[in-house]
Each structure stands twice: as C-alpha cells, then as structure tokens.
C-alpha cells in the first residue's frame, strides 16, 4: 500500500526548499557558468568540464559547486563565469577560454578560498574581469530574469529553493480562480509577445467560456523576430517560471491541458523545458490533484518548424493541429473557439514568466514599475551596433537613451548613433532625436513602431535606411503564409520597388506607388504579419525620406 502522505511529504516544496538551501549553504564557493545557447556555442561546456576537473584535482568538490546557468545577459562578452566566494564580492569574468578558466581557478578561486582579499590581484586575470558596477548591471530591474544566471535551470529543487511554486501553492490553496484573474488584471500586465492586450482581460474572457469537455492554455514560444531571443533565454534559463505561470493561468481560466509551442530552432530551450516538465511530473506538480487540491493538469510540447507567421495565435493553433500555419479571421477568438475548436488562451513566454511574481509579491508591487498604461518590466534583446549587446530587463518607462547609452554602453568608438529599431520586422524606427522617449506600448505606437516582443536593434550612421527597410521586408515577404492577396502580392511588389529604388533605378512615381501598396497592405491584410509588414518602410520614410529621394532617378537623367 502506497502511503500518499509519505509521498506528499517527500515532494512538499517547503521540504525540498529547506534541504536544497541547506545543501547550498555547505559550499564555500559557487561558480556560475553561463550555459545558454550563446555561451554554449562559444565553448562553455568545455569550461565547465575543466572547472570540475580542477576541483577534483584539488579535492575541492565539497567546498566549491559549479552551476551551469541560463543566460547572464551580456552575450557579447561570453562565455561568462561568475565566481561567488562566501564573504567576498562576486566577480564576473568575460570572454573566458580554457586558459583563462584554468587561471581563474588557480589564481583566484583556490587562493581566494583561503585569503580575505576581495579583488582579483593577478595581472593576467585582470583583462577578463568585467565590473558588476557597470550600468549594464545596476540599471536593470530583474523580475522575469531574476533566476536566470543564478540557478541551474535543469534542477527543479534549485527553482523551488528560490521560491519556486510558492505562487502556485498560494493560488491553489488560498485563492479562487476569480481572485487570481482579478489580481492579474489589477497588476496591469499586458501581453509581452507584441500585441499588448491585457493578460487579465484575456484570462477573464477565457474563464467566462464554460469548460464543456476541454479548455486549453497555450504558451506561445514561437519567437521568430530576427534579432530577438528573450523567450529563448527565459525558457533556457528558468523554464519552471514559465511552467508555474502556465499552471496558475490554467487554474485561473479552468484549463484542462496546456501546450507549449516552441520554435524547433531552439533545441536547448526545448530540451530544458522537456526536462523541467518531466521533473514536475516526478514531483507530482503535474498530473492529478496537484498539491493535494482538486486541480489536475498536464502539459505537452509541440514544436514549430520554421514559420514566423505561427507567432500569430490562430496560425499557431493551426500548426499544433498539424496543418499549415495560416491565420484565420477573428472572431471567433481562440478564447471561444481555439485549438480543435475548444476554448483556448494563448499567452507569450515572458507574460507567463511574470505571473508567479505578481501573485507572490502582489499586483501593487508589480504596478509600481512602469508608466500609467504599461506596467512591470520588459525584457529586451539589445543587439546591433552597441557596445554591450545582450539580454536586459528594465522597468517600463525607461528611456531609449538609458537603454542604449547607459545600459548598452552606446555605439562602439568612432560611430554615431542613428536610430533604434523596435518590434523587429513588424516595428519601426526610433530616430536619434527621439531617444528620450520612454519604452511604453502607447508611445512607441505613436511614432509608428511597436513594442513587439522585445528586439531592440541599435543602428549607427554607417547603416543605410533603404537597405534596412528592404532587409526587413525581405524577411516578411519570405515569411508571408500566402493566404491573403494583399500580403502575398503586396509584399512582393513592395520589395521589387524598394530594390529598384535602392539600385538607383527608381522614380518618384515608384515611391508613390510604394506608399499606396503599403497602405493597402496595412489595411486589407488578414493578420498582423501583413498589416505590420510595411512598418519598417513607412517608418524609415517618415524619418529618413531624403535617403529614399536621394536615390531616385528623377532630375538626375
């Protein structure tokens, strides 16, 4: 006879947290090694093996632990290693190779365990040290990325030890589904995938539809915006946070099953998610009667296969159903008629990762970050011509200037900042004269861009705006599903005109036609992809029209 009480106790999150914290407490030193896709591809696997080997050689395995973590953020300087010796300041080492790792071990860690000094004294090591006092670190506000870079994403007990699944427990044991929805509504959380629809309202709509036989919660992990990898980093660095968010959402809306839809191009994220789900099942955090309550739930993963348009929720649903990822008109909205015709709520990865924090710390705490209409923090992938490119998280309302020039350290020496592109191929430009604009859904929309999923591309004066617009349009034309004529043909025709202009063969009437087609595409395309595809063109035209007109033939012949 299985003693359920005994099993419950074994998997009680408070017990697990206590034990794990006690175990961590035993170590004198923790070495955190970034183990996300970026750093992994620069060889962090080998570095971890080397560290382990050195520890074994020196009989230090009981004193020092190595943690393979998710993304630490400063991807441009990877692989990154952070050493935390008890009683000392943390030291972050950048662009580490095998030689440097050995040096870190022999010239900092091993001596550091014995002496009291805070600093790296060895001259050979100094070039590798990256100050943690940089604005890149101090100006950020980590809510969603709190765990990433600090815990081993493949160890559920570490997540639990850092307060994981407490929010789920709170929801299941002390709140009604309605109260959960209310709390999220109150927090002002909005969809982080780009749309910016109120998450609480979406849940409320989904909760209202009665669960006849099935209702689904779907996590949209089809991050396809080129130059953005927020969701990938979250899934790689802290998969349980997203799972916990999904479970709370499921409880709130009455979902019977959950689906993760993740890009197939993200094998590491998928692997970590799979491991995390398996651990949840083992720890009875998924399955029947979770935490001894009436709540039963399970989650499965489905992969994308290389189609940007599947980020659109109805296309995503078609894709899970095993069909072409073409969008369909709404209404009916998925909350009424979604996956296999059942009510379904689709939330983005980052959105769900916020949920447990809101529940634990309260809606008011969350709403204390941000602007009047955009609450909380936002994760951005800051890339392009910027000194510290990487993954950052800032409160909504932070200005573009702070992000690029302070956190990002500005454009590299000798170049001048020209603009920042937000929202990827669906977004637009923020020109240098508007750098003081705060990051906020409404503000960005006003100037013809969008928040998007969080790609911020820094562009310097060496970039030509017509080529940039063409680059983005080329992407959306390639990714158009081909279902509706305005997008299928309009995009292609715009691309031809852009190319003509870019090659110096265009005339004024071509520019006019370009604008007309853009308008038809915006207004008559079926889904967001087509409606927003002209944005980069219109945005560059708005602020840099002279770059277009300079290329026109008129008057030159």
């Amino acid at each position, binding site marked *: 006879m299985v003693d359920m009480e005994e099993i419950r106790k074994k998997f009680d999150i408070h017990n697990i947290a206590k034990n794990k914290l006690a175990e961590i407490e035993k170590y004198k030193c923790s070495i955190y090694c970034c183990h996300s896709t970026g750093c992994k591809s620069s060889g962090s696997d080998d570095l971890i093996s080397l560290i382990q080997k050195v520890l074994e050689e020196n009989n230090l395995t009981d004193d020092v632990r190595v943690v393979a973590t998710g993304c630490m953020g400063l*991807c441009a300087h990877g692989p990154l290693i952070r050493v935390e010796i008890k009683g000392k300041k943390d030291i972050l080492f950048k662009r580490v190779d095998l030689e440097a790792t050995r040096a870190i071990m022999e010239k900092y860690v091993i001596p550091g365990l014995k002496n009291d000094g805070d600093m790296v004294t060895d001259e050979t090591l100094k070039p590798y040290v990256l100050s943690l006092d940089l604005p890149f670190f101090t100006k950020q506000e980590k809510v969603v990325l709190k765990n990433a870079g600090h815990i081993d994403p493949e160890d559920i007990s570490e997540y639990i030890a850092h307060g994981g699944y407490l929010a789920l427990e709170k929801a299941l044991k002390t709140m009604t589904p309605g109260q959960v929805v209310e709390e999220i509504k109150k927090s002002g959380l909005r969809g982080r995938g780009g749309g910016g629809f109120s998450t609480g309202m979406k849940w409320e709509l989904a909760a209202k539809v009665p669960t006849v036989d099935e209702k689904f919660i779907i996590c949209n992990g089809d991050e396809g*915006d080129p130059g953005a990898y927020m969701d990938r980093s979250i899934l790689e660095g802290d998969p349980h946070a997203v799972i916990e968010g999904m479970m709370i959402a499921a409880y709130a809306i009455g979902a019977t099953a959950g689906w993760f839809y993740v890009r197939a191009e993200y094998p590491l994220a998928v692997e970590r998610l799979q491991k995390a789900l398996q651990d949840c099942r083992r720890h009875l955090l998924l399955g029947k009667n979770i935490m001894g309550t009436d709540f039963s739930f399970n989650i499965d993963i489905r992969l994308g296969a290389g189609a940007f348009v599947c980020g659109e929720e109805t296309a995503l649903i078609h894709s899970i159903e095993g069909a072409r990822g073409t969008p369909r008109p709404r209404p009916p909205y998925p909350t009424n008629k979604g996956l296999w015709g059942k009510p379904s709520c689709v939330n983005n990865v980052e959105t769900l990762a916020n949920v447990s924090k809101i529940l634990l710390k309260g809606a008011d705490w969350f709403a204390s970050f941000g602007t009047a209409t955009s609450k909380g923090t936002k994760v951005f992938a800051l890339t392009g011509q910027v000194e510290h490119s990487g993954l950052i998280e800032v409160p909504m309302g932070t200005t573009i200037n702070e992000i690029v020039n302070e956190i990002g350290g500005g454009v590299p020496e000798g170049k001048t900042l020209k603009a920042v592109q937000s929202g*990827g191929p669906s977004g637009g430009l923020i020109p240098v004269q508007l750098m003081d604009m705060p990051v906020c859904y409404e503000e960005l929309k006003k100037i013809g861009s969008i928040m998007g999923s969080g790609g911020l591309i820094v562009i310097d004066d060496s970039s030509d705006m017509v080529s940039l617009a063409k680059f983005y349009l080329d992407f959306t034309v390639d990714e158009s599903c081909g279902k509706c004529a305005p997008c299928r043909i309009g995009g292609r025709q715009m691309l031809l005109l852009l190319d003509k202009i870019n090659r110096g063969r265009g005339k004024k009437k071509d520019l006019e036609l370009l604008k007309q087609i853009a308008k038809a595409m915006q207004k008559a395309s079926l889904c967001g992809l087509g409606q927003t595809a002209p944005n980069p063109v219109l945005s560059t035209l708005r602020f840099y029209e002279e770059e277009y007109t300079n290329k026109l033939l008129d008057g030159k012949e």
Partner: protein
Amino acid sequence: MDRETCLGCQTGDKWRKKRGSLIMALHEIQGVKGYVGWQDAMDLAKTMNVPLARVYEVLTFYNFFKLVTPGKAVISVCTGTACFLKGNDKVLEKFKSELGIKEGESTPDGLFHLQVVRCVGCCGLAPVCVVNGKTYGRMTPEQVPVILNEWREAFKKEA
C-alpha cells in the same frame, strides 16, 4: 516494405494516437534521415491516416523541413538583424563563391548544403554561422575557407 524497417510506419505508429502530432512526427523522421522523402511521407500518411496532400502542405509550408537529402554538412548562415547589420551578407557571399552553389543548394559531391536561417538566437556573437550544430561566432569572410577545410578534413578522417 518491412514494417520493422519502415521509418514512416514506425513514427506514424508512435504518434498516431496523440493529438497535434503531424509536425512532431515529421520532425522525428527528419531527425533520423536528415530529410523527409516521398516514401516516408507516404508511409507516415497511411499509418497516421492523414491525407498525403496534407502531409505535403505541411512539409512545403514550413522552412525547417527538407524533401531531399542535404549535404553531409549543413551550413546555416544566420540572416537575423544583428548578423545582417554586422555584415553576414559578405560571409554568405564567400560561402557561395567558395562552394559554387546558391543558398538552398548542395554541392555536387554531397558534402555541403548551404542555407540561410532567420536568427539562431546568438545575436551577441553576430555574425554567426552554424555547421551541423556547431556555432561559429564573430564570423569574417576570411574564416570561410578555414571552416570548410576543417569539415573537409573531418570527413576525410571519417572515410
């Protein structure tokens, strides 16, 4: 065909009863063979009771799937925004001229397949190329022949 060795049937059997599984099954076949061939598609369609037309609608919609065998080494040149801004177009040109093929094609000797991909998520390392899962960051056109030789040597050793 012998059912035991029929990849399409085996995969179909595994996924048939699960929901939303066509794309997963196709991933699995491609994972084993590197592509999904006509016979695999036929076998899978039959086993999963999905019309073949649907299987190909899906196969040809999604960029990820290949219908014919690619080269032994698949070179993916990232054309995400960060890589674009940092000049990966020049790296791609170099690959094209070195291999004498266009993107989406394989070399006649079957060694290399060149493709462009949209953001592999290593924007911090831009520009980036991936060869059979191995990532090369901060690429320059000069590195191209070096990388190709590295793989040619590896294949020689294998042989």
